[in-house]
Structure formats: C-alpha cells, structure tokens
C-alpha cells in the first residue's frame, strides 16, 4: 500500500458520524438529581441495587481535599480486594461482604496507584513527580530517587506486602495492563500507559523526546512493554515498545506548499508545521487475551490492536470522534465483537454531568467490530441524572456483569455514582441499575468572593474530589472504590429489566483472579438460572410466543423437581421441543442459545 493511499484510508476513519444516537436528557426528575449533600449524611438514590457495606478508608489515608490520599482502582484475587490510593494501597478481606476487613495498608507515595494482582505479585502504577524509589513522602529532591513506572510488591503475606522491584519507564505509568504470554504461563507482559513526556536520559538511561512517530529510538509514540518472569519478578524490565501509533497523523503537507487558510505569521501560524496530531500515549488499554485483542483508549483515538504476539502488536483500526477529546478506557463484550469506550471529559476532577453539560461528551460510546476487524461507531450513553457543580462526574472505569445472553457492564462515574448499562443493542444502550449519593460538599454560599488571601497561610475551602473511581462485578457483588468515602460493596436486585434468574446466573460465574483491564472470558456453568435467564429475556422482549414460553417454564420446573436420569431425559426432551421453536421465533438466536443451555444442563446432570 502506498504512503498516500494509506493515509487516505486513515483519513476516512476520521469522518465523524453525525447521526449517532444521542440522549436528549439529562432529566431533572431523575431521583439522583438534587440529592442532599454531605460526606457521611448525603441523600442516596438507588435502582435495582442495594448497598451491602461502606467501609471508611484506612486511617492513614483519611483526609479530604485534593488528591493526596484519594483512592484509585481495584484488583481482585481469592478473598482479597486490592485498592489503590495515591499514597499507597489497602488490602481488604471480603469473605464477608457486609463486613470487609482491612488486612493491611501500605503507605507508599505512588500516584495514581492503579493495581493489578497476578498470583502473589501486586503491580502498581506510578506516575507522579513526587513518587520516590523508597516510597517516602517529602518529594523528589534528587532525580535519581524518582520512581515513575511500575512497582512490584510480593503479597504472599497480605499482612506484610514487600516491595521487590521498581521498574522505571520513560513516561511513567498512568495505568498498566497485564497480558499473559500466549504459551508460557510463567511469563507476563505489562503494557504501560504513561501520559507524561519522556524523562531526561540523565534520570532514566535511553529515554528520548521526539516528534517523529516512526523514529524507533524516541520514547514517545509507544507503550513500554515490561516482561516479567513471575518466578523472578526482581528481574522484570522493559523489553520493547509497542509502537501502535505510527501513521496516525494526517499526511504532512509538502514543505513548499503553504497551508490553506494560513494568515501570515502574526502570533505564530502553527498549522504549517508538520507536527503529529495522532496520539503518542494511551490513557488506558484493555486487553482481551481470549480474543488476542486489545482496545486502546489513546487521546483522540480509540484503537483496535492484535496482540497475538505481545511483543509485536499490530494496529488493526483507529477511530476518532470530535466529541471524544480523551478516549479513556475500554470494555469488550464477551463475544469480542463490541467495545465500550469512555471519554474522560474534564479529567475526572470536573463536574461534567450538570444540566448544561453536553450529552455526547464525558460518557460512553459503543463500537462494534466487523469481520474485517474494523470499528463502527454506534450510540453514546451518559447517565441521565443532573449532577451538581460540586460533583466531579464523568464516565469512568468498569467491567462486565456476566448476565447470559446480554452485554451488561457496571462502571463508576465518580460523584455521578455507580451505573449499570446494557449495550446488547449497540445503537440503544440502556441503564438498568444505579447507586448514587449526593455531593460530598455542600454548594458554596453566595456572595462569598473567592478572594485571594495574601501571604503563606493555609486555609480556604477546596472542593472534594470523590466518588466511584471504578466499579466492578466480581463473584456476586459490585465493588466500588470511592475516592473519598472509602470502599463500597453493592448487590444487584431484580427489576423488570433484570430478573432474579439473570442475577443468579451472573452469580454462578466465579473468577479466582480478576483484573478488569485484562478481561477474562466469561463461561457460564450448566445451571437452571442460566436457562431461565434466556427464557426471561424471550418473555421480556417477546422473542417467542407466550404459550411456548409458558410451556417451557413449566417443563423446566418439572425437570428441576426430578433428579438423575429422569431429569436428564426431561431436559433432553425439552431441548428437542425448543429446537423446533427456533423457526418462527422472533428472536431465533436467543432460542438457540437457550436450547444449548438446556442441552449442557442435561449433559451435566448425573
């Protein structure tokens, strides 16, 4: 493919679809609008969700105002939840979700502290300028003390985590993503997303600034890839750079040809400079190892990358959208054919869910992946409530809820709360459930000017940055990291758009280890709630005639009352009947899926 042709293709991807479905609310009548403010006494609105427990932050982190002690992301393993914080991390024992127990709190200045747990190793992202090799407070006085990259802790004794290695990277680590070696289970790759510029090579050898995306020696325009031998984590190091941005800038203008619309040099006309407009970093990438894919949320682009060989990733597609200024994070559907991208308009610290905030910005957008592995953009989704100017709010981190037959995800919206979205139909995403508290801070009083106070005294009210950093479903519960209020555990409750059977089926899916940015493939066990989930969906959406769904429900009940061979026979007989329902059903695919679930249940019956 010639140079110019290549750019033509990429250019075509830039044309923004103008007829995307966009919501027309926010809705002031939403129960989440106008909740009473207060850190501990805020009003609460919930739908199809209940708060199981809220546990305050560990004592060393308990302060408000600013981000110094803000909680960040979560990772899950065994009975533990690992919660990052800008000043360290906490390990919670969640054996009893109603009473999570704090196992340990490690104080280690590490903004922003996003965690990944792999076996006994906890990986923590370090980006901030004040992070030190020795974890201590006080800032970096000597550049050789600066730690920006990924910290590795041994947490085999969760009561006493031990720092085993600081892996320095040229741009630090805003977030990171674990990617297992395709064959060797002892080898792990960590894709590092760093948002900073390249550090000076006096600080980290080999780091180099550059503006040419194709220059293999510059430290920008790449994701650093750390290779970890899980048996020797102290030897972890950066082995390569994933250069997935090359060619994302539009064709440079010929130097001799002046820019269209250039108006001389007054004040500096920068449009003629052949500077790249494509991203040089991702904010976050989500790997889906089962599909060998990675979705990159990278500045002004959402990328699709083939990671069959983690050391040599290949970009498949890139999507731009002028409404999305900061592609932030991604979640794949379980079949790997859709991706939800979020847009972190306002960076997470700003109130972007107010009545006048634009609905196409600061929310989600849903892309499908076609057979040629190219993206197509569909609708936007944003929580429909009106949040206040005191509530930092934008779509943020989340993951799938394993409801069979549907694409459902839960995510945090900072002070917009926790929200559950169904994106089965990418053109019509719907909200199924939510949990929201009022603002942490009361609105400022009127007529109190934000006057400057001279001198060096402390004081002055600062808005609290809080809310759900990320909310994830894991083994039956939703865990939400509240930046200020601590640690929330929630449970789904049935409603007309989410049935008891669907919730029970989701609860049957168990993962020992769960790192949301490295998405596991969901497989449902053979069980009655799984079959009934499909049946409930056929009833809810009129996918099959009512007399048939009623008959199938009765047959399932009858089969469940049996055991052993009679149950197996009953289920096999039912599956045969259901197979005949496929033709003529309004939703034949769902009927087929139900039949398959009945058959596997029969097979599993002994």
């Amino acid at each position, binding site marked *: 493919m010639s140079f110019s042709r290549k750019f033509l293709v990429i250019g075509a991807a830039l044309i923004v679809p103008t007829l995307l479905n966009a919501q027309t609310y926010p809705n002031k009548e939403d129960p989440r609008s106008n909740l009473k403010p207060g850190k501990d006494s805020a009003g609460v609105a919930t739908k199809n969700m209940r708060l199981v427990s809220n546990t305050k932050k560990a004592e060393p982190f308990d302060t408000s105002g600013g981000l110094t002690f803000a909680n960040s992301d979560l990772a899950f393993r065994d009975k533990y939840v690992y919660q990052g914080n800008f000043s360290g991390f906490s390990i919670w024992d969640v054996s009893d979700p109603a009473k999570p127990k704090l196992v340990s709190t490690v104080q280690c200045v590490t903004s922003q502290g996003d965690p990944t747990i792999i076996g006994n190793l906890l990986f923590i992202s370090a980006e901030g300028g004040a992070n030190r090799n020795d974890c201590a407070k006080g800032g970096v006085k000597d550049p050789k003390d600066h730690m920006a990259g990924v910290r590795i802790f041994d947490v085999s004794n969760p009561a006493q985590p031990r720092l085993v290695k600081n892996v320095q990277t040229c741009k630090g680590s805003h977030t990171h993503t674990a990617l297992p070696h395709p064959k060797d289970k002892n080898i792990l790759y960590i894709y590092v997303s760093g*948002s900073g510029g390249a550090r000076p090579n006096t600080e980290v050898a080999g780091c180099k600034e550059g503006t040419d995306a194709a220059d293999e020696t510059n430290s920008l325009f790449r994701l650093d890839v750390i290779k970890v031998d899980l048996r020797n984590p102290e030897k972890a190091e950066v082995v390569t750079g994933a250069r997935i941005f090359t060619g994302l800038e539009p064709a440079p203008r010929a130097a001799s040809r002046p820019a269209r619309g250039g108006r001389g040099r007054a004040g500096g006309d920068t449009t003629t400079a052949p500077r790249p407009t494509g991203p040089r970093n991702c904010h976050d990438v989500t790997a889906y190892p089962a599909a060998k894919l990675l979705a990159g949320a990278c*500045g002004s682009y959402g990328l699709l990358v083939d990671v069959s060989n983690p050391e040599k990733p290949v970009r498949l597609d890139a999507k*731009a959208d002028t409404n999305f200024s900061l592609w932030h994070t991604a979640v794949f559907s379980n079949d790997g054919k859709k991706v939800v991208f979020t847009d972190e308009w306002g960076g997470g610290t700003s109130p972007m869910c107010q009545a006048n905030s634009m609905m196409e*910005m600061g929310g989600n957008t849903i892309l499908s992946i076609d057979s040629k592995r190219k993206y197509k953009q569909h609708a936007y989704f944003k929580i429909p409530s009106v949040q206040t100017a005191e509530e930092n709010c934008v779509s943020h981190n989340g993951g799938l809820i394993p409801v069979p037959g549907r694409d459902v995800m839960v995510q945090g919206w900072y002070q917009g709360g926790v929200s559950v979205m169904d994106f089965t139909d990418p053109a019509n995403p719907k909200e199924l459930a939510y949990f929201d508290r009022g603002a942490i801070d009361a609105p400022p009083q009127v007529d109190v000017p934000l006057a400057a106070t001279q001198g060096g005294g402390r004081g002055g009210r600062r808005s609290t940055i809080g809310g759900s950093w990320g909310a994830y479903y894991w083994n039956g519960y939703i865990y939400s990291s509240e930046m200020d209020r601590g640690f929330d555990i929630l449970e789904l409750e049935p409603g007309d758009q989410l049935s008891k059977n669907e919730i029970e089926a989701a609860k049957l899916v168990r993962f020992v280890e769960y790192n949301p940015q490295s998405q596991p493939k969901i497989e449902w066990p053979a069980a009655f709630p799984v079959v009934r989930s499909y049946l409930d969906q056929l009833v809810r959406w009129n996918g099959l005639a009512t007399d048939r769904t009623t008959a199938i429900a009765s047959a399932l009940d009858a089969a469940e009352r049996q055991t052993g061979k009679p149950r197996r026979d009953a289920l096999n007989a039912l599956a045969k009947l259901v197979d005949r329902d496929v033709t003529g059903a309004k939703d034949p695919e769902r009927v087929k899926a139900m039949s398959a679930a009945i058959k596997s249940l029969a097979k599993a019956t002994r």
Partner: protein
Amino acid sequence: MPSRARIIFVTLAACAALFGPPSIAAAQHAGHKVAITVPAGAPYTVADVEFMQGMIAHHAQAIHMSRMAEKRGANPRVLRFAMKIDQSQIAEIRLMQEWLVHYGQAAPDTSSWRTMTMAGMLTEAQLAELDSATGVAFDRAFLRLMIQHHEGALQMVKDLFATNLAGQEIDVNVFANDVVSVQTAEIGVMRQMLSQLPPK
C-alpha cells in the same frame, strides 16, 4: 518557526521550596509586582504557584475566544467544540483558584487574561482578527488560533516540569498531566476539523 507570544510574567527568583525552607519570588505582571511567598515545609514551589496563576489567565482567554463562536456563526462542530472548551476550562479555573486560595496564594480571576500574557495567548491584533471574522473564516481563524493557544499551554507545562523541584505537588501534577493529555488530543481534533473545512 512559529513565534510564541512573549512571556512577560517573569519569574525573578528561581529558588523554590518543596518541603524545604521558605522562598519568596516576585513575579511581574502588567507593571505590578506580586510577591509569592512559599512557607517552609510547603509541598509545592514558587513555580507551581506561578503555573496555576498563569494557567488561570491562559484558560480565561480560551473561554473568551470560545464565547465568540456563537455570535460569529461558527459551524455546528466548531461551536460544539468551543462550548466544550468553555465548559471544561471554567471547571479547571475553579480548581486552580481553590488550590491557590487553599495555599494562601493570590488567585487571579477570569478577567486576568487582559493583564497577564502567557505562552500561546493571542495578541490584541489576533483577538481583533478573530472577533471580526464570521462563518467559515471564523472557524478557520478560531481553530488556527486555538491550536496556537493550546500549544502555549503545553509549553507552560513543559516549563513547569523543567523547573527544579516543581510539578510534584499531587494536585498540580495531576492537573498539569491532564492539561497535556486533553490539550494534545484537542489539538489533534482541531487539526482534523481544520483539514475538513471548505476551501476559501
């Protein structure tokens, strides 16, 4: 080479205090001298204060530019983008003002762009040019000048991080990194829009 707008907000003292002894710097803007005092043991430096003060003025001018879009007949995408800059940067101004007030530092208001000049900010002539353009001519001028303006913001962050001990206080650090992420991406978006405008 594009000429950056001159910086007259000059730091006269390079010393700073990150958890160190107190430091005092005098910054000059529009003929006034404003002393910046950083108390001993403070987690930030003079350069952090100057950055936050200067970025308020910088943002305020971007908002002023963005608010021209509606009455100058900008196309819907440019108008929407201008609204976005308005809504984003007004929230960031509040964050910066609160940070400054919290640490007992002078917090410029949204009129400060008229008296403070930071990297990439428009000259009087450029402002007049923008304010007299309509339709596609406005779109073109707006995008070109806003790219220049955003590149100035990136330069301000670069200067901040190049200053010894600066850019470490966590809220400044996160905010400065956000400025880079967001404005780099927005420059990309603006270049895309610029390339798709109808020819003159």
